[in-house]
């Protein structure tokens, strides 16, 4: 056989992916050649989906498997034509059914399902694999089509492997992956030249018809099949036992297969394109574009109705629309598709399951679609698809798209055939299938009584072998048990509890290696090791930090994303005992100290209580879980956070903290001691997938788009979405799509706006469109203290949407309104006229927002007024102080001190120090004394007299001089005419004065010095707390002072 050279290259890649699968049973093999020829790739794939449990291996199930093998073989043989794998393996009595998987493969798969059991099974399989490899080596030299053979084997292996994976979990994603892989693999396989040529011809000739329907394709297909048959007959003729009926049914499906071939074909074509052709194409496409622009509206708009289909009948089907449909607007169809669970894709890709074609379709799309082997439907076929779905709902809902449907119909066919024929093989096949189906159905109908289905199934089963029926009964039993459990549970638990993740893998949005769950597991498992290791503190920017340094982890994230769930599951899985404290416990300093210490030193006997008497029953591994640390608030929990930090520093067990907002001020001190794990909201589609499966289990129908809306409305909060769903679920009559949509809109979670968002809304013209005047004034009431300030600070940052010449006028109007608002505010606060508040809302927020409505350019600033105000207060205080101290020597008021005296006074003191260095000290001290100023008054004086933009003159004073001056001041300090503490502002002033009074009483003879003494004590206290920037000098000075005092007293 002439082979395309490419096939050789491809083979080199494949070995990594796939290995051999071996047909199971002897009896089946004779049948295989036939089946091979007729069956399709697609079917084979579908079968795989059904055949979940080959690994569990009950003998009776094997036959079924073998069938799938046959299918696979068929598929592959059909594609490759010259390959006769069955020659090699099929005849030989091979007993094993275990899938054989290569090691490399294992690893990649492990990434997807990190599952211990799975791993184990893979390891077992590997051993087998080695054996098989040897076999392969023996066989291969024997045949001509070596390459093809190995392909073939690999393919089979791959499929097997997939099956085995399936067994472990039927995780949809993994399935998809697999399918993708097979797809690509198939494409590779399709390079056989003869086929390609053939298809090319057929392609050219029938391109246009080909588009129309699948039926037409059959011709071409049948040709191909003939050829294939020929090949096969040559090789397998002896073994062929034909089953004509199956042939016929298989032919229908042949179309899909053929299309895949075309795909390979097309790519070949393209590579051959000459420049001329390309040019032609360009011209063509230009013409097409013109046509597109002129194309007409639907001709018979409204002449048909979209039939009512089973809900979700198009689930997981992706559609591509092209061309003008006959009787529908594009939007209608898209809506219909979405309503039934499908998606509409903008471009042709492998993910598209159907192409829906109208008049004047885009030829490029069609061509690509045919390349990719996507079935092409016209409008009527599409409608049929929906209306037919009513009949097959059960099967279709569970399975995926068209392929699944095919299986369904196929299995039906088989059933019928079975009735007619009584061949034992057939029975076996069905037998193996039906139990699985029953299981599925049981699952499906958990919430609804499923008697009918079950009965039907039982009937069909009765006609089958005993063993099979036994099996099915057992599975039925399991199903019933499940139902019972379900019933008893459902009344007791809320959905949130009922569908709580049972293991780490079920947590939504926490898969992947860099997920928080993984990180937490890592951190927790290595915790004890890391304690000995003494790791350096990682830089805060280190990306892949595993948190080894930290003794505590802080999980932060919005509510309802699974923080607490994660922690409890991780602890359970790693065998830690979680000691949990949450906001409903009092967590103040002393309680934390006492209780937690005790709790952590004890051991848990819970294992014994549960009947586990092994050694592990008593665990000594504790984890301290502090849930809702941001809820440690108020008087009750005073000092709790600080104590928690101390606890973390000294802890001997891992500590896990949880909070919502790690940026809040409360958390600021804690975050430094914690390994930071941030939970983000899961994506909408992640939540939706989980919710859909729950809806399914509960037997309620919610359209995907409504669900999306609901999820978005709840702010991607899994828990609330569940709560809302359970609310909806009770009343099925209410659950119509439109109503739910409306509902979903109104269920928006109310999140309190921060002043930043509020002020952005105040000025946003976009938001104003949908807001009533009440809504606008509500923006003011989010925080009526801050809102006016924010508006005033930011109104100039707005770019009003208006003609340019009006901009200034509008700003002036806004300013005017703000000023009136300020007047109102003064009245509100001055005379407690709170009834004016709504009016202030108008002036301070609504009116300015209205006149300059536009959009905010740049960042929204925090009101500068607050800072300025507090600074002003401080200045007043300082001026007051100096005014009081200098009262004997000055005659001005406070403001004249501020305006007239301060700068000159400062210069008089500072300049000698700058100019004359140490010699000027006495001079400046003289001035200080003559004005009765204290040393620290000098600092306030400098601060007071310094205007924005001026340079601080004290920087010119050398540090030496400064120090010397302070020393001399301390030595020479003399009596002041006032008690310095009196005017100073300090929290403990009263207490201090009391103490001082006592002291004064004791040392009556030294009144003056006592007064001084007071001053010094005061100085120490106030300064330490207030001005930490001067702390360098202070300690020495105060010591000096106190020393001096002591001397004096002596």
């Amino acid at each position, binding site marked *: 056989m002439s082979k395309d050279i490419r096939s050789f290259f491809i083979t080199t890649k494949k070995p990594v992916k796939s290995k051999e699968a071996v047909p199971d049973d002897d009896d089946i093999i004779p049948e295989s050649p036939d089946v091979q020829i007729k069956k399709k790739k697609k079917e084979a794939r579908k079968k795989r989906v059904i055949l979940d449990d080959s690994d569990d291996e009950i003998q009776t199930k094997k036959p079924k498997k073998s069938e799938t093998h046959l299918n696979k073989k068929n598929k592959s043989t059909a594609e490759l034509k010259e390959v006769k794998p069955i020659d090699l393996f099929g005849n030989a009595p091979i007993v094993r059914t275990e899938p054989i998987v290569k090691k490399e493969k294992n690893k990649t798969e492990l990434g997807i399902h990190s599952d211990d059991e799975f791993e184990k099974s893979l390891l077992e399989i590997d051993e087998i694999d080695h054996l098989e490899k040897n076999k392969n080596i023996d066989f291969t030299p024997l045949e001509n089509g070596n390459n093809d053979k190995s392909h073939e084997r690999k393919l089979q292996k791959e499929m097997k492997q997939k099956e085995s994976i399936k067994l472990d979990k039927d995780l949809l994603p993994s399935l998809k992956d697999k399918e993708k892989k097979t797809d690509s693999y198939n494409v590779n396989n399709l390079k056989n030249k003869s086929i390609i040529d053939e298809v090319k011809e057929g392609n050219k000739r029938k391109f246009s018809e080909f588009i129309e329907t699948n039926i037409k394709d059959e011709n071409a297909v049948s040709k191909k099949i003939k050829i294939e048959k020929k090949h096969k007959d040559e090789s397998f003729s002896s073994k062929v036992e034909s089953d004509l009926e199956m042939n016929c049914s298989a032919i229908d499906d042949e179309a899909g297969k053929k299309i895949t071939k075309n795909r390979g074909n097309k790519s070949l074509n393209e590579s051959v394109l000459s420049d001329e052709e390309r040019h032609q194409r360009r011209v063509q496409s230009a013409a097409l574009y013109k046509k597109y622009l002129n194309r007409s509206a639907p001709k018979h708009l409204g002449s048909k109705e979209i039939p009512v289909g089973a809900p979700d009948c198009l689930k997981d089907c992706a559609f591509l629309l092209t061309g003008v449909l006959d009787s529908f607007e594009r939007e209608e169809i898209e809506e219909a598709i979405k309503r039934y669970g499908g998606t509409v894709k903008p471009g042709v890709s492998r993910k598209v399951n159907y192409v829906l074609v109208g008049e004047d379709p885009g030829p490029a799309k069609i061509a690509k679609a045919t390349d990719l082997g996507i079935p092409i439907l016209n409008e009527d076929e599409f409608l049929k698809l929906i209306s037919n779905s009513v009949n097959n709902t059960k099967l279709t809902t569970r399975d995926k798209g068209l392929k699944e449907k095919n299986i369904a119909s196929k299995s039906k066919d088989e059933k019928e055939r079975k009735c007619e024929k009584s061949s034992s093989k057939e029975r076996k096949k069905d037998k193996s299938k039906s139990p699985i189906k029953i299981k599925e159905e049981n699952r499906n109908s958990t919430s609804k009584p499923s008697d009918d289905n079950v009965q039907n199934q039982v009937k069909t089963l009765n006609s089958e072998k005993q063993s099979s029926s036994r099996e099915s009964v057992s599975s039925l039993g399991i199903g019933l048990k499940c139902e019972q459990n379900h019933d008893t549970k459902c009344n007791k638990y*809320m959905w*949130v509890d009922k569908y709580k993740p049972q293991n780490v893998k079920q947590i939504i949005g926490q898969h992947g290696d860099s997920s928080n769950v993984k990180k937490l597991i890592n951190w927790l498992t290595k915790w004890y090791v890391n304690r000995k290791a003494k790791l350096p503190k990682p830089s805060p920017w280190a990306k892949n930090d595993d948190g080894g340094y930290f003794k505590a982890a802080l999980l932060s994230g919005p509510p309802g994303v699974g923080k607490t769930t994660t922690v409890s599951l991780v602890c359970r899985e790693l065998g830690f005992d979680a000691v949990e404290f949450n906001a409903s416990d009092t967590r103040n300093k002393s309680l934390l100290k006492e209780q937690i210490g005790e709790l952590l030193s004890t051991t848990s006997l819970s294992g014994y209580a549960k009947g586990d008497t092994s050694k592990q029953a008593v665990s000594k591994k504790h984890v301290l879980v502090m849930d809702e640390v941001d809820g440690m608030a108020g008087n009750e929990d005073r000092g709790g956070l600080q104590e928690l930090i101390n606890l973390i520093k000294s802890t001997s067990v891992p500590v896990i903290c949880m909070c919502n907002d790690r940026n809040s001020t409360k958390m600021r001190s804690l975050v430094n001691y914690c390994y930071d794990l941030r939970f983000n909201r899961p994506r909408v589609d992640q939540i939706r997938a989980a919710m859909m499966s729950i809806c399914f289990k509960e037997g309620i129908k919610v359209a995907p788009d409504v669900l999306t809306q609901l999820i978005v409305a709840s702010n991607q909060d899994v828990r609330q979405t569940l709560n809302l769903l*359970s609310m909806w679920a009770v009343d099925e009559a209410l659950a119509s799509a439109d109503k739910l949509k409306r509902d979903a809109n109104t269920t928006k979670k109310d999140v309190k706006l921060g002043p930043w968002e509020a002020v952005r809304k105040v000025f946003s013209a976009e938001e104003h469109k949908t807001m009533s005047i009440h809504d606008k004034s509500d923006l003011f009431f989010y925080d009526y203290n801050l809102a006016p300030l924010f508006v005033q600070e930011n109104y100039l940052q707005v770019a009003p949407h208006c003609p340019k010449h009006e901009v200034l006028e509008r700003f002036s109007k806004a300013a005017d309104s703000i000023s009136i608002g300020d007047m109102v505010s003064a009245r509100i606060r001055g005379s407690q006229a709170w009834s004016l508040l709504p009016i202030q809302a108008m002036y301070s927020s609504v009116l300015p927002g209205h006149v300059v409505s536009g959009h905010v350019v740049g960042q929204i600033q925090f009101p500068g007024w607050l800072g300025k105000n507090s600074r002003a207060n401080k200045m007043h205080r300082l001026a007051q102080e100096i005014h009081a101290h200098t009262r004997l020597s000055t005659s001005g008021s406070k403001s004249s001190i501020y305006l007239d005296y301060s700068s000159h006074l400062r210069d008089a003191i500072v300049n000698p120090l700058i100019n004359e260095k140490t010699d000027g000290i006495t001079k400046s001290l003289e001035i200080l004394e003559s004005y009765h100023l204290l040393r620290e008054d000098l600092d306030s004086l400098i601060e007071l007299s310094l205007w924005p933009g001026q340079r601080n003159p004290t920087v010119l004073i050398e540090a030496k001089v400064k120090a010397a001056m302070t020393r001399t001041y301390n030595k020479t300090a003399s009596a002041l005419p006032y008690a310095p503490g009196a005017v100073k502002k300090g929290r403990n002033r009263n207490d201090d004065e009391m103490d001082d009074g006592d002291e004064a009483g004791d040392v009556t003879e030294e009144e003056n010095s006592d007064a001084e003494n007071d001053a010094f004590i005061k100085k120490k206290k106030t300064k330490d707390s207030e001005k930490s920037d001067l702390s360098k000098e202070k300690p020495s000075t105060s010591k000096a002072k106190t020393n001096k005092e002591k001397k004096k007293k002596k």
Partner: protein
Amino acid sequence: MDDDDIVIMEVDEPEKKQVKPSSSKSTNLPWIEKYRPQTFDDIVGNEDTVSRLAVFAKTGNAPNIIIAGPPGVGKTTTILCLARALLGVSFKDAVLELNASNDRGIDVVRNKIKMFAQQKVTLPPGRHKIVILDEADSMTDGAQQALRRTMELYSSTTRFALAANNSEKIIEPIQSRCAVLRYSRLSDAQILAKVIEICNKENLSYTEEGVSAVVFTAQGDLRSALNNLQSTAQGFGHISPDNVFKVCDEPHPMVVRQMLEACTKQDIHEAYKVIAKLCKIGYAAEDIVSNIFRVCKTLDISEELKLAFIREIGLTHMRVADGLSSPLQLAGLLARMCRVAAGGDPEW
């Protein structure tokens, strides 16, 4: 002994029920209590939500709920109905109701509510103890925080029902744990129907206009409608518009609306007549102005003009609040509003 107790309880219940509607004592009750709905069927408005809750009342296993909505639309009533329907005779034991009049600080949440959640009450399957937190928006953040985990940990035995006026005052984590149900204001027709029904039950003499005046004063608040109705009935024995507005001492919004509409047509004479009348009746200037302000917000005129009006009203309100409550100020307000309506630029 135990058996006896139970028997007695069961006998008690029906008796009470019989007594309630017929007793003459109940005239002492305010009508809002007397006619407070006892079952879901009697609840006015928000049918969707109520019917859903009614299903829960049958099946049990209701999720935690927050009912948010303006006052007087039946939030508390709904929750009480739900609790009663779910728990029946064990209502007393299995319901903890706390409202703003109770101390609901952080320690109460940590002690009282938690203790209640931990209590064992024998209930039929699918029924749970219910903690009703009325006016939950007045709970402090700390108290709400303390509630979080309690809501989850004891969800197998205890469910929470919260009622609040504005749900944004309830912290997000709590909202996340609940299904949030929103009640909207009742429509005038709904209130009207209920008011007429009660008028008939009480054998009141009423006129159509009188009843609709009651509805108007209520502004979607059924409770205030009933209160107004009762006070009118007891004061005058006849429900007519005049009597109603005498009781609900407030300048009639319709009159004010007419006045404002006159202003938009720059008909100051017409407008002044209204003001003069209101002053003559004896309304305080402050009441008049604040009423004008309220009506103006709902006036059906262009946003631009509305805000211009509001600006003038605000200025006047400020002066009135300063003590200048002379009719002159009000007349001035009218004049300025007319000028604004004529397109004359105000002072800005």
